[in-house]
C-alpha cells in the first residue's frame, strides 16, 4: 500500500482504455528484466495517472528489514550493510517503490549525498541516500523525460545499465544496488529523446487520445467521482485492483517457467531480421516481453498472440529511421508481424 497519509492514488483498474500502456506496465512488473518503458504521446492521455496508479497496485515484496535499499533477502546481491549481516536477516514485507523523479531535482538528491543535518549539528559524515537508492527493486518514474537535464540523463543511464550506484562524497565511498525499471513519459512535440536514450528503454508505447465518445464520457465520469471522494472511489475499485494484484503475483511466480518453443524463437528472429533491428537487444526484449504477457495470461508457453502483442512495444523504437519513409514505425512493425505470424 502507498503511504496512507496522502490522498489515495487513482486506482489502476479504473483507468479507461490505454490497454497497451497498462499491459506494458504490468509486463514490467512481472519481468523487470524487460528494461524500462517509454510512454510517448499526446497530452492528457493519462500517462502519469497510469504510472502513479501502478504504485497502488503492485503486490508487496520481501525485503530485509530496515534496509534503505530494500535488499532482497532471497537475492544474490546485497548492499554493504546487509552483506555484513548475511546470517540471519530480518525480513519484512514492503511495497514496491515507485519513485517520482521531479524535473529540476539536483544531482545530490538523485545520487545521494551526505546528510546535511548530521553534518551541521553533529559534524558527522552520514550518508543520505538519494532517489536511486529508494527506487531499488522498484520503478523510477520521470515525467517529461525529454526535458530532463542532459547530465542527469547520462547519470541515470549509467546506473540503470550497471544496476549499481556509486557515491563518492567527502571521502565517503559507498556502492549500493540500484536496480530499477526506468519509466519515462513525455510528449514528442516538446522535444525528441536522444537516440541513445531511446534504445535503452525496453518497451516503447505510443499513447493516443481516445476518439470514442463513450470512452471520453467514462473518463470524465470517473475523474469526477475520484475528485469528489478519492477514498471512496479507491474503495469502490479495490476489488478489481485486488484481482489484478493477485494476477501479477501469480505471473511473477510462473514467468520463470514459461517455455518458448523453437518455432517461436525462430519467428521472433525472423521478425527482427525483417525489420533490420540492430543488435540483440530488440530480440531479447521481444522474448522477455512475450513471456511476461504469457505469464500474465496464465499460459505455460509463449503463443503467437503474445509474440504479436510484444512486437510493437519491443521493436518500434529500434528501427533505423528513414527520414523519407513517412510510415509510422509502429505500422512497419505491424506489417512485418502480420507477414511472419499471419494476420
Amino acid at each position: 500500500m502507498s503511504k496512507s497519509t496522502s490522498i489515495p492514488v487513482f486506482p489502476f483498474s479504473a483507468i479507461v482504455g490505454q490497454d497497451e500502456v497498462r499491459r506494458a506496465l504490468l509486463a514490467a512488473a512481472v519481468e523487470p528484466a524487460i528494461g524500462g518503458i517509454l510512454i510517448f504521446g499526446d497530452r492528457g492521455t493519462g500517462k502519469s495517472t497510469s504510472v502513479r496508479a501502478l504504485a497502488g497496485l503492485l503486490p508487496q515484496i520481501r525485503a530485509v528489514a530496515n534496509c534503505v535499499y530494500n535488499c532482497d533477502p532471497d537475492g544474490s546481491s546485497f548492499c554493504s550493510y546487509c552483506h555484513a549481516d548475511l546470517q540471519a536477516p530480518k525480513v519484512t514485507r514492503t511495497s514496491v517503490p515507485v519513485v517520482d523523479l521531479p524535473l529540476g531535482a539536483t544531482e545530490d538528491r538523485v545520487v545521494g549525498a551526505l546528510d546535511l543535518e548530521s553534518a551541521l549539528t553533529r559534524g558527522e559524515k552520514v550518508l543520505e541516500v538519494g532517489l536511486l537508492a529508494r527506487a531499488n527493486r522498484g520503478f523510477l518514474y520521470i515525467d517529461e523525460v525529454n526535458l530532463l537535464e542532459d547530465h542527469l540523463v547520462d547519470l541515470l543511464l549509467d546506473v540503470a545499465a550497471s544496476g549499481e550506484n556509486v557515491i563518492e562524497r567527502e571521502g565517503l565511498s559507498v556502492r549500493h544496488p540500484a536496480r530499477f525499471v526506468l519509466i519515462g513519459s513525455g510528449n514528442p512535440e516538446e522535444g525528441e529523446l536522444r537516440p541513445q536514450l531511446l534504445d535503452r528503454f525496453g518497451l516503447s508505447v505510443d499513447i493516443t487520445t481516445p476518439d470514442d465518445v463513450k470512452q471520453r464520457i467514462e473518463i470524465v465520469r470517473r475523474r469526477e467521482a475520484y475528485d469528489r471522494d478519492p477514498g471512496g472511489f479507491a474503495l469502490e475499485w479495490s476489488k478489481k485492483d485486488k484481482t489484478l494484484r493477485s494476477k501479477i503475483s501469480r505471473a511473477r511466480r510462473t514467468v520463470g517457467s514459461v517455455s518458448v518453443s523453437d518455432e517461436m524463437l525462430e519467428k521472433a528472429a525472423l521478425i527482427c531480421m525483417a525489420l533490420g533491428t540492430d543488435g540483440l537487444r530488440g530480440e531479447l526484449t521481444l522474448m522477455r516481453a512475450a513471456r511476461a504477457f504469457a505469464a500474465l495470461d496464465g499460459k505455460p508457453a509463449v503463443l503467437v498472440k503474445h509474440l504479436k502483442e510484444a512486437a510493437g512495444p519491443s521493436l518500434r523504437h529500434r528501427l533505423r529511421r528513414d527520414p523519407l519513409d513517412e510510415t509510422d514505425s509502429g505500422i512497419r512493425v505491424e506489417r512485418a508481424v502480420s507477414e511472419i505470424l499471419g494476420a
Partner: protein
Amino acid sequence: MDEPPAASTDKWDEACLALSLALISPKICGGVIVRAQAGPARQHWLNLLVRLAGENTPVVRLPVDAAPQRVFGGLDLVATLRSGHPVSEAGLLSTSNGGIVIAAMAERMSASMAAQIGTVLETGQLIAERDGLQLRSSTRFLLVALDEALEDEPPVPQVLQERMAFRIDLDGLRAAELSNPNVVAADIGMARKRLPGVKLTDEVLEALCAASLALGVNSARGCILANGVARVHAALAGRSATVQQDAEAALRLVLVPRARSFPEVEDETRDDKETPPDPDPDDGREQDADEAGDDRQLPDAEELADMLIEASKALLPANLLISSPGKQTLRSRPSQAGRAGALQRGAARGRPAGTRRGDLKPGQKLNVIETLRAAAPWQALRRREALKHSAVSDGLRPIEVRKQDIRVNRYQQRSGTTTIFAVDASGSSALNRLAEAKGAVELLLADSYVRRDQVALVAFRGKGAEVLLPPTRSLVRAKRALTGMAGGGGTPLCAGLETALLLALAERRRGATPVIVVLTDGQANIARDGRAGRSQAGRDALDAAHAIGQYGITSLLLDISLRPNPLAVDLAGAMRARLVPLPYADSSAVSSIVKQETLASSDRPYTV
C-alpha cells in the same frame, strides 16, 4: 436582436466570466491565460481579479527569470548557518497556497519550469528534491499566465495550457468598454459553498464529450476541464445541476479555444429551428430566460451535442474555414518545430541558465557564489576533519572548498538558423531564374553573416540533386559554389526536396533550426528513380514535399514560373510552406521575403 453586439464588449464579458469561474474553483479551473500586451485592459482585469478574490488572498508575481529556489523552495543558507541545522525556505508556490500566482511573460517560461509548475497545478502537491532537502507541501493556487507573445511567437508552454481552463484575449479593448461585471465577492463565496452539491448531468457530460471530439480537442484534460467548468458555471448561476447554458459556457470558454479542427459539416437537411446556431451567447441567454425558466425541458444529450457543435461553428474564427476546408487539423501557432527552440545547453556562451556541478576545466566558468553556497553548510565538518589530519592548526584554510562544491555556469544559446536553398537549375528555369536565385542566395549570405546564420545550397537538375554548398557562413566559399552552378536538363524535383530534407534533418540534429527555401516552377519531370515521366515525377515530388511538412520544417516555396501555377500550390500545401509567386521578383525581393520568414520562425534572435 439579430445584430451582433460589438465583439469587444463580448470579449470583456467573457473575460470577466472566466475570472469569476476561476476564482470559484482554482482546483477545477487551474488558471487563466491572459493574452494581452501590458495596458489598461489587462490592468483593469487584474485589479478586478484581486478585488474579487478578497483582501486576505495572497497574490504573488512570478517573474520570468525567477530562480527555481525562489519558486519551489530550497535551503535557506543564512538561517541554516546561523542555527546549525538545515532550515528550508518555502518557495513562491507554497506561500501562495489559496491565493493567486501571476506569471509574467509566461510565453518565455522555460520548458522545465513550466513542466514543474504544471505538475503542481495538477496534483496540488509540490515535491522538490533540492539542496540536500526534500520539500513537500500541498498547495492550490490560481495561476494567471500573462502572455505577451506576438502573433508569430511561440505561445505559453503546452504543459501549462493543458492544465489551465481559460484563455482570454484582451487586446483591442478600449478603456471605455471595461465595465465592471455585476458579480461581487459574495457571489463567489456563495458559489464556492454551492459547488460541492452541483451535479453534472448526463446530458451535459455527453454533449460536451461529443463536442470535444468534433472540435478535435485531442486531450482528455480539455474534456475534463470543460465538464468541471460547466459545474462551476452552474454553481455561479445558483443551480444545483448543470443545464444547457452551463454546457454552452464551457464550450465557449474551454473547448472552442482548444479546437484543432473544424467540425465536419453535417447533414444539411436538419431542421434549422431545432438547432439554432447561437452566435451570441449573451443574447441567447436573455431569450432563454424570457421564454422559460431554468426548469424548462432539457434537450437530450444528442440534441444538445448537435447544438453545441453547431454553436461552436459560429464561435470559431471564420477564416478557419478558408484555411482548412473540411475536417483538417488546424495549424496552431508555431510549435516547437518552427521555433528556434533548439536551445543549446552547456555551451560556453549565451544566456546564463543556472549552474551545475562540474570540474574546473578550461572553458568552464566558475560560479563563485554558488560554489561558496554549496561549500558553506559543510564547513564545520570539514574543519574538524582538517584539524584531525593536520597537527598544525595553521593548515586550516578560511574556507574549505572541495571538488564536489565546484559549480560552473551553464549557458543556453540559441543556435542559429540554417537556410537551405533548393534551387531548380533545370533547363526550364535556368533560362531566366537561375541568375536571380544566385543573387538572392548571395544577398542572404551577407545578411546571415551579420545574424550568424548559415546558408546551404542544393541544386537539382538533370538526373539528381547535389549539395553544392554545405551549411556555411563563409562568403567566399558560397560565392565560388554559386558561380559554378550550371543550369540545364530535366527537373528531378523529388530528388531536390529529398536532399534538402536530409540536410535539414541533419541540421536539426546539430541543434540548428533549418529553414528550407525551394525555388522551383513545380514542373517535375524526373521521378525518384531517375526515370523521365511527368506524372510519376509529380507524385514523387508531392511525397517528398509531404515529408518536409511532416517533419514540421519551416519552409518557403518561391514559385518562379511565369504565371500562377497550380502545381506549386499543391506542393506548398504538402510542405505546409508559405507560397510566394515570384513572376517578376528580383533577387533582393527574394532575400527580403526569406528574411521575414526566418525572422518569424526564430524566437527573437539572440546574439551574444
